[in-house]
């Protein structure tokens, strides 16, 4: 049991953050190694690739495809959050920083097998970025020249948006950097728009 401390004594914050991170990393590892059913990575990657190429054929513009991927991700996120909560046993996060750490260390680890890093955390603007050194979705993938503004992994942004909405946080996720476009890492930026209030049951005044 450790006490969260406000941003006062820098040394204490560092210590509690390190402790918290290693505890979360452990939860993430346990969730990944323990009772998670896994599927073949290539199957998953190729299926996703097929989904994206089919979407490109079916939609008229690349912007439509991006929106489709994001919406698909959103629907996944709505359900994924419950599996995440059930598997990891993590309860409500105390603050925005903890949310960021939990997503990066436990969430990503549990579902994609890789942890992300939290960078650019800004508690005033309520935003942070998740950096993935290697994104499993983009393995074997090469974008064609006519891909235009396609955000191949936009589904991840949708998943984060949907999942966080189910735990009362309305966020905006954008894919900032992508290894498919020549960047050195993949980066997703998450900005908290508002905290949704608990819905009051009907009939209560």
């Amino acid at each position, binding site marked *: 049991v450790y006490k969260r401390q406000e941003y006062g004594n820098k040394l204490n914050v560092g210590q509690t953050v390190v402790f918290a991170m290693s505890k979360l990393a452990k939860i993430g590892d346990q969730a990944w190694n323990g009772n998670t059913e896994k599927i073949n990575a290539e199957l998953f990657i190729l299926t996703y690739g097929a989904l994206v190429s089919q979407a490109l054929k079916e939609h008229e513009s690349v912007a439509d495809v991006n929106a489709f991927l994001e919406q698909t991700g959103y629907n996944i996120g*709505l359900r994924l959050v*419950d599996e995440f909560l059930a598997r990891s046993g993590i309860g409500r996060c*105390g603050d925005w920083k903890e949310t960021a750490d939990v997503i990066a260390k436990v969430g990503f680890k549990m579902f994609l097998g890789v942890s992300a890093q939290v960078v650019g955390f800004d508690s005033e603007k309520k935003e942070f970025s998740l950096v993935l050194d290697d994104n499993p979705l983009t393995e074997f993938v090469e974008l064609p020249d006519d891909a235009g503004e396609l955000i191949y992994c936009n589904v991840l942004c949708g998943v984060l948006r949907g999942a966080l909405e189910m735990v009362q946080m309305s966020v905006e996720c954008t894919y900032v950097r992508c290894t498919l476009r020549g960047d050195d890492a993949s980066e997703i930026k998450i900005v908290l728009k508002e905290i949704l209030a608990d819905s009051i*049951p009907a009939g209560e005044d």
Partner: protein
Amino acid sequence: SLYNMYIFNRLGACVYYEEYNRTTPPASLEDEQNLIYGMLYSFKHFVQKTSPKPDEEQSGFRYFRTSAYKLHYFETASGFRLVLNSAPNVADLRKELRFVYSLLVDYVIKNPEYTVNDKIQPDVFSVFVRELGTYLTAKKLLK
């Protein structure tokens, strides 16, 4: 020694209700479900406000007991609330309710036929009902 179970979604609607052993059924099941949800909502906030340690995750409303029954409560961060009424002498069922939640995830939420926040129809989600029954029987809560 179980009387009944309710599962509420994050909007306050009761998505699943099962009776195991109940002597006097209520006049209106829907009214009773709304009443229970409203009470739990208020009670949870009441407990948080009056608690000497409001920040701790583990502190919070777990169950209440009367001379006639014990109501066990489990809530998830995503807003699902599981309620189980049992005989007064039954021990804390928090772990069991957590497992029921994982059953809910595996057999209902992951089922493509389920739209989030919908009612759980027992005939469509018969596997969930069956697994639930098997688990509760295995835990000696049901005969």
